[in-house]
């Protein structure tokens, strides 16, 4: 179903994405997002930052969603009224106004390591793209790192390339 393609056939270089060490603050990450994507009018899919440790090992990824969630801890909690807009529109407008206001600036000083999606799943360069597809779908990931010998970070597999590869096979067959 994937034309026999493996991860290294579809992976992209790691320098396609901004890098940050885990101790960077959320506000520093926000500035990087603005410079690397928004101001540059560059909108890769997914829009993400790679988070590394002090020995340049990949620790995780940071998406725009991760950042926004990190700035508003109520998003991390179970369902609240604010997430059920059908109930009372007038009251909800007050709730919306309080989002991203109280304590957000303080939260923006937290390190990105606290809000990133940890990199626990990876593929080897020779692994089939179907494995990468499985890991992405099963773990709700936007990127899967490609590690050589389970150690050296050599590339990234994204959903777009996985989709392209698998869908090609579907159409041809």
């Amino acid at each position, binding site marked *: 179903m994937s034309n026999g393609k493996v991860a290294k056939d579809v992976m992209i270089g790691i*320098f396609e994405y*901004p*890098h*940050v*060490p885990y101790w*960077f603050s959320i506000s*520093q990450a926000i*500035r*990087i997002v603005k*410079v*690397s994507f928004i101001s*540059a009018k560059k909108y890769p899919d997914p829009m993400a930052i790679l988070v*590394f*440790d*002090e*020995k*340049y090992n990949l620790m995780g990824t940071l998406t725009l969603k991760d950042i926004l969630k990190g700035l508003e801890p109520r998003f991390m909690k179970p369902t609240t009224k604010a997430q059920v807009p059908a109930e009372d529109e007038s009251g909800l407008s007050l709730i919306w106004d309080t989002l991203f206001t109280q304590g957000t600036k303080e939260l923006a000083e937290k390190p990105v390591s606290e809000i990133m999606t940890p990199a626990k799943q990876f593929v080897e360069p020779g692994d089939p793209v179907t494995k990468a597809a499985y890991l992405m779908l099963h773990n709700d990931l936007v990127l899967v790192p490609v590690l050589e010998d389970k150690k050296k970070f050599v590339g990234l597999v994204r959903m777009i390339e996985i989709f392209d590869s698998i869908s090609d096979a579907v159409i041809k067959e």
Partner: protein
Amino acid sequence: MIELIDRENHQKLYLQLLSIIKKKIEGGEWPIGTQIPTEEDLCKMFAVSRATVRTAVLELVREGYLKRQQGKGTFIYKSTVSDGIAMVTSFKELLFEEDLIFSTDILARTVMMPVDDLDARLNITPNKHIIYIKRLSLTGNEPVLLQESYIPYHICPLLLEDDIENISLLELFEKKYGIRITRVRNHIDIAYLSADEGRILGLPENSAAILLTQYFHSGETLFMYTRSVKRPDRFQISIELERKAI
């Protein structure tokens, strides 16, 4: 293999010995900061008289390769000696006038994007990746100098894999990568340590420290910016300038 004095050679013995020692220093066999063998040992190693050894060592001290420390011995001080304006080619040479024996711990070596004013300091666009290196130098077990170096990734990507614990960054730039240092801009100031810097240097937060910022150029290219903070209690600095003969 030990290179020996050639007695058939008509060059003076002390000059031959000087040349052999210089090769050992420049080649890194005798690294900066290490103590050279005693006069007696050198006499035995090269089968020469004490007077020959003494003359060669004195000349190497005069040239700046060796430094004598009262009551301790003679140590390797520089691996290269520049002509013309005596340019600072190693942090050690600038900051460790008396602290010759030390080791370096690599606290971080990773890649990041420029934040704050780093892009301006490095003269790069803010979407360029940077290699970040954080090192702690120790004299014995005492931490004395905390250095953070920032290098545009495209200048030297292989730096992520080099042995920077034992080889200085500048030596790697010049000898391995052929990036010749033509200018170093230094700023010396007083800094107040952050909590993290204080913890690493073993001093309370907000303690005063010596701050050295350095900008390294090769021709028109600025290839490294370094920020170093040093404990102030053992601070000594000496810069020698020599006018090049016209």
